[in-house]
């Protein structure tokens, strides 16, 4: 990769793309400097603070549909405009990993606060993140920990903590799930679970008996559960594999082992893991990756500057099968070629047409109106090789201008990073 392509790659994988002028400026800084900048956008390692949600529009009323719309649409807007793209890209990754969903949680503010959590500490220590997400109100509701008590523990969170969040299937037993469920009892929401009441620990609901959990003895509460999870041999590789898959499109065992080693060496610092992952990508370890509809939409929106009517975005993204805050189940969205499902492709294509229709006059629209497809590929942030033969023929056969831009956004070259 040349330096410009490396920078463009970083932003397509670890951010949400860049418009042409910003990409040129970033390319001039070079990939290493850009990686540093992405990992630490304000130069102070400080967490993200600015966001676009308005709490006044997020009342704590589970019946408020407008609040849910606000939560989803403002996140999409944030993704398309963020000045901390890697922070938001990793928050998006965590949203697909530590899944919670509006359809169960209902109260939009709680989901928004969960995303705020990912933005604030998603690049910090993994143990802290695990602690905070376990006690996150939306998660307490989504995986039912708030209702779990020593008499009749609820296994939902305990199971997914191990299966989906930290170790992966095959690395724990049913007895571990039950022991974890017992040890995690007692955490609930104030005011009888009324939204906004905050989290509290009810000693009377907690089963403090000593459990054997993941091979550790004496496990009896959240801290000892987290100790056992953090100390489990499978954890670093499971998390490293998540990042290798999401950011590099790779499931290579050697790569994952190497990244897991970096994660351990860095004391389970997520930022260090992300840095190692992206560095490996810059060094040639990345495989092609199908962009999910939301990252693709973020990139397309950023690159074109298009502002599509919110309701249209909602309808078409719903058609693609990927609406923020509404994952299909606790495992999050299936990735890869699942995004080539027929109706997802149709909805994405229609969304591309809507984006093209809403693209303001400027460099991108001019390139789509011109004859030189290499220029179009360049402004869209594609690698120097540009569009392949097949896509070039397809684009040449499409009327120049918005129609051609729409087709360009759904070429394999643009959909696959």
């Amino acid at each position, binding site marked *: 990769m040349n330096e410009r392509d490396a920078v463009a790659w970083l932003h397509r994988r670890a951010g949400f793309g860049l418009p042409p002028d910003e990409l040129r400026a970033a390319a001039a800084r070079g990939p290493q400097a850009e990686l540093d900048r992405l990992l630490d956008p304000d130069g102070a390692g400080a967490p993200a603070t600015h966001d676009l949600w308005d709490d006044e529009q997020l009342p704590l009323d589970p019946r408020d549909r407008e609040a849910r719309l606000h939560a989803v649409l403002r996140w999409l807007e944030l993704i398309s405009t963020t000045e901390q793209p890697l922070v938001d890209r990793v928050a998006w990754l965590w949203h697909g990993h530590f899944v919670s969903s509006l359809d169960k949680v209902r109260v939009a503010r709680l989901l928004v606060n969960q995303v705020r959590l990912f933005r604030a500490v998603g690049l910090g220590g993994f143990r802290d993140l695990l602690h905070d997400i376990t006690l996150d109100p939306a998660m307490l509701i989504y995986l039912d920990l708030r209702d779990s008590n020593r008499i009749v523990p609820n296994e939902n969170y305990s199971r997914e903590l191990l299966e989906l969040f930290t170790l992966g299937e095959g690395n724990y037993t049913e007895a571990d799930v039950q022991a974890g469920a017992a040890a995690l009892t007692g955490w609930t929401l104030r005011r009888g679970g009324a939204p906004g009441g905050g989290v509290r620990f009810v000693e009377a609901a907690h089963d403090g008996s000593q459990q054997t959990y993941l091979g550790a003895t004496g496990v009896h509460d959240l801290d000892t559960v987290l100790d056992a999870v953090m100390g489990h041999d499978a954890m670093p590789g499971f998390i490293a594999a998540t990042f290798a898959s999401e950011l590099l499109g790779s499931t290579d065992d050697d790569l994952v082992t190497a990244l897991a080693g970096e994660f351990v060496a860095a004391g389970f610092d997520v930022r260090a893991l992300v840095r190692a992952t992206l560095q490996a990508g810059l060094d040639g370890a990345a495989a092609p990756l199908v962009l999910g509809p939301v990252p693709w939409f973020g990139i397309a929106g950023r690159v074109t500057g298009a502002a599509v009517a919110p309701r249209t975005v909602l309808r078409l993204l719903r058609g693609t099968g990927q609406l923020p805050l509404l994952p299909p189940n606790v495992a999050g969205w299936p990735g890869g*070629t699942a995004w080539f499902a027929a109706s997802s492709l149709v*909805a994405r294509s*229609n969304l591309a047409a809507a984006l093209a229709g809403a693209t303001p006059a400027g460099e991108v629209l001019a390139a789509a109106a011109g004859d030189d497809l290499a220029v179009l590929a360049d402004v869209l942030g594609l690698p120097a090789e540009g569009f392949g033969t097949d896509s070039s023929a397809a684009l040449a056969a499409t009327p120049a201008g918005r129609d051609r831009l729409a087709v360009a956004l759904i070429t394999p070259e643009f959909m696959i990073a």
Partner: protein
Amino acid sequence: MTTPIDDATLSRRTLLRLGGGAVVVVGLGACDRSASVGGTPADSSPPGDGTGAATTLPSAGPAPATTVPATVPAFGGKRLVLVQLNGGNDLLNSLPPTDGRYRDLRPTLAIPEAEVVGLTGLADAGLHPSLAPLGALWDVGGLALVRGIGFEVPNRSHFVSMDRWWTADELSAAGWVGRVLDGVPGRPSPLFATALGAGAPVLVGRTAQPTVITSPGSFRWVDLQPEWIAGLAVTEGAGTSPDGDLRAAAREAFQRTLRAVADFADITGGSETADDLPEREGGATIADGLAVAAQLLTSDVGAQVVVVSAGGFDTHANQLPVHAGLLADLAAGLVTFQAAIDAAGLTDEVLLVATSEFGRRAGENGSGGCDHGAGGLALALGGQVRGGIYGDIDLGDLLDGDVRPTVAPQALFTRCLDWLGADAAQVLGARDDALDLLR
């Protein structure tokens, strides 16, 4: 494993018979035959004349020829619909047993005795009130209920369990229907195998891919000309770049999608995708999916295998209202589906099977719900189904607190493969003839 379906295989549809005549229900318990003696339709046949029932199923003679699709290329015209109730549907509340231990296990969640809907000839269980509409299908003998279905050694992970169901317990193999689709000769219609609501790994073969339509109401190009898209579907030369495989996959997907959209143009089922947020996990309702499934099967588009997926069944908390809504959706969808199939004269050509990855824990948790369990519920619906109850459960013999599975999913798969005229022994490695639920 591959399963080529040659002409010889296709001609061996020994189980399929035309025109059932009078309804005689001879269902036998799958694993414990004593179960069928203890109050199943086997010893008390439901009324066969369908009096008062809103359905004509099962048919008693040749189908009216008028609306049968002309472009049916495989399986001797048989169609299979699989309904996946994702999340783990609760067997015990779907089919509340009269066993007193049920009420002990479910002090707050048991369906009150007065609300349980009785089924003619079934003494030891009834239906959840939301499933009451299925009574008419039961009464005409076209509904089979299989209780206690599940793998002998269960796994309580949703995703492992779903994988096991999809692949007939050969993880990392192709879907068990996909193995059959791989062997279908020629180039079937793009809607030949269609997944509605979500992707359907059960339909994915080594080469076969279903057409996945999650939003049927919006399955058309807007502000795009198909000929522009056609340019993206050209497949020559795609393999030359480093990401050639994925690009080729994208191009093939566009090609399939173009044909599917064109064929789908006449299907009007399914609501247009709303510019709003879905309220249900996964978005789709069962009734919506089944309405589109019925349209696909009764239109001349060559659809023969349809999977309808819907989520929301993972009722760890607040189960009573949630499950009631889900089952009402299922029941309404099934009744409307069967009416559409009957009206099209396809009663004897369509088999519908509904399953879930596991049942739920026999006892309730502290959240007004039930955790992941083992033995679950499957149902089969169609003109060639032998209605009745299959399988048995014993609440006095739980498996780690779960309903012990007594019917292997492979028994159900064997019947589905028989239905398609495929060689079940070859597809599954071995037949399992424990469920004699087809005529």
